[in-house]
């Protein structure tokens, strides 16, 4: 389509026209900052002040595009449009003109036009649709580069109505001869999935993707893994079995730096078949620790820890006595990974160091003491950014042991007077924490206490003396005998500590140990007399408690000031709590017939700590859960994912395969027969009618949330790692699923419930059977023993069919489970479709239960399965 009128009066493109029009004034809507002139560069013309008039001018310019013969000039025109787009100016009005430019043989122009399309397609869906033809045509171009680019653009348009045009080129691309196109196509599948999850043909694409895991090109494989992980996120990520995992691990050296990561991220989710395999995987991955890619190193660390977790012996799991325990293994792993991690911390850039210090912190929690001998690495450098310094000071406290503590405490002492206030505070806290946890060995507590006492006297630095007071108060609670060191300077300290927190802690100590501090009453008296000047409720409360306590120890000195304080406090209406507390003390003192009763209540010293942890530090469960999400944002924020990531964006990865003995659930399932031929047929264009409810065993890769997937054709691929014999089956883990023994429902109820639950929510599982049952009765009675009831059953020519159900115990939720089981006669296999009705509203719990039920059924039918 040609424009009817010829261009007039146009600035010559390509000559760097630099149009600085002062004409129309209003900046284009959508302009972020109006676009400011860049530096004095020669190409300035692209980024000069833009006005509405210029977009029009650009349009004029674009109309000359068709008639322009010079390639460079053509490029300049398009480049100008993209420059405006980069500035944030809305050039979407040029959509029609730009689309005309798409018919070009110049790759640079093509790329720019594609970029333009992707940027504005969402706002101009109708126009974008018009260029589909060109894109589809380009995706069949003879140049693989063009094919790839066109495909990428086509999939990136983010227009749901485009799906039908896209799927054909997409399918074609997956069989393309060039890896660049295939890899782009694989990513395209993911884009389609995000565009429309409902209509996405999961089953079909999953099969293709699983098949493509064997692609000779590693970048295609990488993308397959990444895509599968996202598509199958609902069911815990890409389904893994031994064959797949070993296949990928054996090829790991072929992968690019970033490709390795996709495989490494799978390892933590894989349950090794046995101990030996776990060790083999670790050996195989060990070289990765030598790569310079920090992401890969950390991912390897994560993989190691997870394997250690899987193959280590736990108390009471009945494994070999000589196999190492989980803790031992983890320690070994930590020792191995220490050097690489420290190197990364030492040589990495600041941003990375910050993140890695957080990782180190978490590893220390997991395995205390591993970094102790590297403590000098964590000394603060003057030139480091503040956040790294802070992280290091916090970490140093955790690295203290009897050998390192003197050095560390001395180093912390240097930092106390740092100009950065937070740093000073942290240094004092770290010191206190070393003493508190007794990690400094003999005498350390006292020497630290002496240092802290010195700091109390640091008049010039109020925040340090206050922190020191706080640390000392905790320390005395833990080690009451060091009060002898602490007591003397307290009255003095109270005079010049200004921060409320520090003051209340000093007052607390004076009240608690005032009997042995001669000046205590007078120190308190000064505070009481200036009661009206106290603004902080915490100080007031501490003062009240301390005064009352001390009253019982030294009544003659205290009586009068207590009276004064009581009066002030009961009249004080600034804090309800304080007011009530004062009244409480007052009534207690007045009403008790025997003053000794009140005394015994108030002064009994029951709070000396017996553990070396404060309650808030005892978070081992929380730490363990963080460990599951190691190497993610959770580690940096020290926060569980569900607390800050939106639910739809959370991926809960599931460890697989569940049937490995180390998962403590029965034997390894046999790997499916290679189904390559079927898949090739599917490529040929036959539509894949795999319904969600009944996947046939040879097509495998059930789309619904399942842990159990038979992957195609990997049986012959296991080469480096020997195939170990799985040991005898472990025990089942079915804790939270308990079925009623007397559940009963009618056929109609059954049907209505079945229909009420959509097929999407069902769990489907298919397993091979060693032998097929002789009659339906045998199956029914086997299941009946596990409280799985039969609604109806029957024998058909090719299969047995069962409609089963069960009901949960009422206190677990009382939900119903409906099961459709089909036993194929020809190649014996069991296909289960399980739905749940009622019960838990939490979808994750529901899924867990469904999975457990599936396991229960499998174990009930164990004699046929293995």
């Amino acid at each position, binding site marked *: 389509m040609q424009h009817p009128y010829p261009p007039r009066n146009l600035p010559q493109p390509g000559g760097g026209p630099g149009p600085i029009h002062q004409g129309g004034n209003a900046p284009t809507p959508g302009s*972020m900052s109006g676009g400011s002139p*860049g*530096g004095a560069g020669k190409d300035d013309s692209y*980024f000069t002040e833009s006005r509405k008039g210029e977009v029009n001018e650009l349009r004029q310019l674009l109309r000359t595009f068709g008639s322009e013969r010079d390639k460079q000039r053509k490029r300049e025109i398009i480049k100008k449009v993209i*420059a405006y787009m*980069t500035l944030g100016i809305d050039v979407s009005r040029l959509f029609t003109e730009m689309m005309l430019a798409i018919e070009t*043989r*110049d790759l640079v122009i093509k*790329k720019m036009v594609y970029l333009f399309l992707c940027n504005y397609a*969402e706002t101009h869906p109708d126009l974008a649709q018009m260029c589909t033809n060109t894109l589809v045509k380009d995706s069949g171009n003879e*140049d*693989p*580069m063009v094919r790839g680019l066109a495909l*990428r653009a086509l999939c990136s348009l983010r227009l749901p109505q485009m799906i039908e045009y896209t799927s054909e080129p997409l399918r074609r691309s997956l069989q393309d001869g060039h890896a*660049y196109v295939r*890899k*782009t196509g694989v990513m395209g599948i993911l884009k389609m999935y*995000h565009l429309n999850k409902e209509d996405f043909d999961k089953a079909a694409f999953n099969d293709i993707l699983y098949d493509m895991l064997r692609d000779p*090109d*590693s970048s295609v494989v990488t993308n397959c893994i990444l895509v599968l992980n996202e598509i199958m996120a609902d069911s815990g990520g890409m389904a893994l079995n031994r064959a797949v995992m070993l296949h990928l691990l054996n090829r790991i*050296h*072929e992968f*690019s*730096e*970033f490709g390795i990561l996709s495989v490494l991220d799978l390892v933590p989710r894989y349950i090794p078949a046995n101990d030996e395999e776990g060790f083999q995987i670790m050996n195989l991955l*060990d*070289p990765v620790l*030598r790569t*310079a890619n*920090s992401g890969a190193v950390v991912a390897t660390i994560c993989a190691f820890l997870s394997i250690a977790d899987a193959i280590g012996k736990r108390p009471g799991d009945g494994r070999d006595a000589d196999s190492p325990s989980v803790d031992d293994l983890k320690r070994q792993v930590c020792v191995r990974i220490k*050097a690489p991690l420290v*190197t990364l911390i030492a040589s990495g850039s600041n941003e*990375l160091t910050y993140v*890695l210090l957080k990782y180190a912190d978490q590893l220390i929690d997991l395995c205390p003491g591993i970094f102790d001998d590297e403590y*000098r*690495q964590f000394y603060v450098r*003057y030139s480091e*950014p*503040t*956040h790294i310094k802070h992280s290091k000071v916090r970490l140093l406290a955790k690295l203290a042991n009897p050998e390192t503590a003197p050095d560390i405490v001395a*180093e912390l002492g240097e930092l106390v*007077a*740092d*100009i950065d206030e937070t740093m000073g505070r942290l240094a004092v806290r770290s010191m206190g924490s070393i003493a508190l946890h007794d990690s400094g060995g003999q005498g350390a507590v006292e020497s630290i206490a002496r240092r802290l006492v010195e700091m109390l006297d640091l008049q*010039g*630095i*109020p925040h340090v003396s206050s922190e020191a007071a706080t640390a000392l108060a905790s320390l005395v609670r833990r080690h009451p005998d060091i009060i002898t060191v602490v007591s003397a300077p307290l009255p003095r300290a109270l005079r010049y500590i200004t921060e409320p927190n520090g003051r209340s802690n000093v007052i607390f100590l004076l009240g608690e140990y005032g009997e042995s501090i001669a000046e205590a009453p007078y120190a308190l008296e000064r505070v009481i007399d200036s009661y009206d000047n106290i603004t902080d409720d915490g100080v007031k409360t501490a003062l009240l408690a301390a005064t009352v306590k001390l009253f019982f120890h030294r009544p003659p000195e205290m009586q009068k000031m207590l009276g004064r304080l009581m009066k002030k406090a009961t009249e004080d209406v600034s804090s309800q709590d304080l007011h009530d507390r004062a009244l409480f003390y007052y009534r207690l003192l007045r009403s008790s017939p025997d003053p000794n009763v009140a005394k015994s209540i108030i002064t009994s010293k029951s709070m000396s700590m017996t553990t070396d942890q404060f309650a808030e530090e005892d978070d081992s469960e929380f730490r363990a859960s963080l460990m599951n*999400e190691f190497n*993610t944002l959770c580690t*940096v*924020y020290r*926060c*569980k994912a569900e*607390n*800050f*990531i*939106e639910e739809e*964006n*959370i*991926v809960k990865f599931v460890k697989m395969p569940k049937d490995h003995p180390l998962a403590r659930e029965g034997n390894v399932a046999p790997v499916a027969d290679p189904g390559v031929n079927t898949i090739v047929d599917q490529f040929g264009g036959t539509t894949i009618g795999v319904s969600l409810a009944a996947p046939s065993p040879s097509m495998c890769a059930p789309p619904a949330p399942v842990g159990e997937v038979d992957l195609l054709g990997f049986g012959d691929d296991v080469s480096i790692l020997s195939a170990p014999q799985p040991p005898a089956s472990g025990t089942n883990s079915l804790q939270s699923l308990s079925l009623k023994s007397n559940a009963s429902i009618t056929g109609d109820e059954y049907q209505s419930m079945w229909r009420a639950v959509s097929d999407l929510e069902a769990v489907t599982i298919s397993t091979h059977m060693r032998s097929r049952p002789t009659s339906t009765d045998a199956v029914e009675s086997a299941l009946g023993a596990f409280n799985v009831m039969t609604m109806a059953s029957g024998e058909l020519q090719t299969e047995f069919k069962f409609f089963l159900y069960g009901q949960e115990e009422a206190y677990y939720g009382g939900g119903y489970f409906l099961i459709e089981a089909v036993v194929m006669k020809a190649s014996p296999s069991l296909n289960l479709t399980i739905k749940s009705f009622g019960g838990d509203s939490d979808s994750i719990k529901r899924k867990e239960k469904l999975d457990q039920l599936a396991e229960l059924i499998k174990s009930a039918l164990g004699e046929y399965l293995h």
Partner: protein
Amino acid sequence: MVASAIFITDLTGKPLISRNYRGDIPLTAAIDRFASYLNEVEDEMKKPVFHVDSGGEVLNVDDVGCTGVGGETFVYVQHSNLYLCGVTCKNSNIALMLTYLYQLTSLFQDYFTTLNEESIRDNFVIIYELLDETMDHGLPQSLDSTILRQFITQEGNRMADDSKSKPPVALTNAVSWRAEGIKHKKNEIFLDVVEKLNLLVSANGTVLHSEINGAVKMKSFLSGMPELKLGLNDKLVFEAAGRGGSSGGASSSRAGKSVELEDIKFHQCVRLARFENDRTISFIPPDGEFDLMTYRLDTHVKPLIWVEAVVEPHRGSRIEYMIKTRSQFKSRSVANNVEIIIPVPPDVDSPSFKSSVGNVTYLPDKDCVVWTIKQFHGGREYLMRAHFGLPSISREEADGGNINKGSGGGSGADMSWKKPIGVKFEIPYFTVSGIQVRYLKIIERSGYQALPWVRYITANGDYQLRMA
């Protein structure tokens, strides 16, 4: 890793270029938030990873999750006058995102030699191409500059009618870092062994921490697909040889000269499995410049250049420095361009210096004195005296006039002393660790003779001596 978008801004947070990969976050709003983070959060509080909740509030690390779910996490790195930032709304792998951003920076540098605001503006089309090629749908793809260069060029390759542009096989090849058919007139390879010494010395003169960060850098100009084998005097090599070979005695006698490298990291071209087996470093090099390996040695090293400072402050009148420096390496080595940087209080005036060697300059803007010695031979000792006047009322006292405003006026004054002495130097033909290249074998099918060139250099890393 899943990045929703990547964008580059200037130091004020104004966007220069951006690419929204997933469309699952509003990018313009996200960039605005990043800008407001840059401008509103104090420098000390800034962290390279931060979370903005769904209400647009920037959260402290400890507060993440307190305001409910949702929002985005920003990860950014700084390069000259730019910020490169990734945004994600998932629980992404942060180490990986940072690695990507770093590699993107070096990729841009490789393309434009300097990476700054101007070069971004000048090359926006290529940057778009690179952003598209290095990441697809928020997942990193290939970031190898030697490969990308073959189909994304400065000139822009054209779909000429005669020769079809093909994505290089190398993009998807087993040897992903090297293309086939490279030709050089002269087949040369340059090898630099560079060691940087990190040192931290306490005020009383004890070495708190010393460590060597080494790198073997290569510049390869070799044709074809050459096979290279590098032999180092790595201790582990000899141990392996001693165990395996019959003449254990011979190798152990040489063990004194070998070096144990603690943590070695290799460029991806090195066959790691081979190294694990017999400690042979064999590889097909990429063309051009790259770091073959890096290593770290955490050993007690004698500080190569020792500095002692005696400071005599006379409050309200003057301050005197006596600086003694000593080179503690063999006399046949020479340290070049030695700079000893001594911090001084901010309010000194009328400087005067006396030194036995070199130049001394006072840099008021950095509050320090720099003593430059062009050539510092091993085993020498030099002295420098500096004298400054002090105002009769120190800055803190002047400030302190308005009550107790300062968080410890005294401590502030003390802090100028807390700044450590820094030293810069370069010693050619010398490695602290004693690592040596024993051989570099180059084998290529065509059988050409290639010249390997080897250089050694030791320089300062983070070299700090605290002042008393």
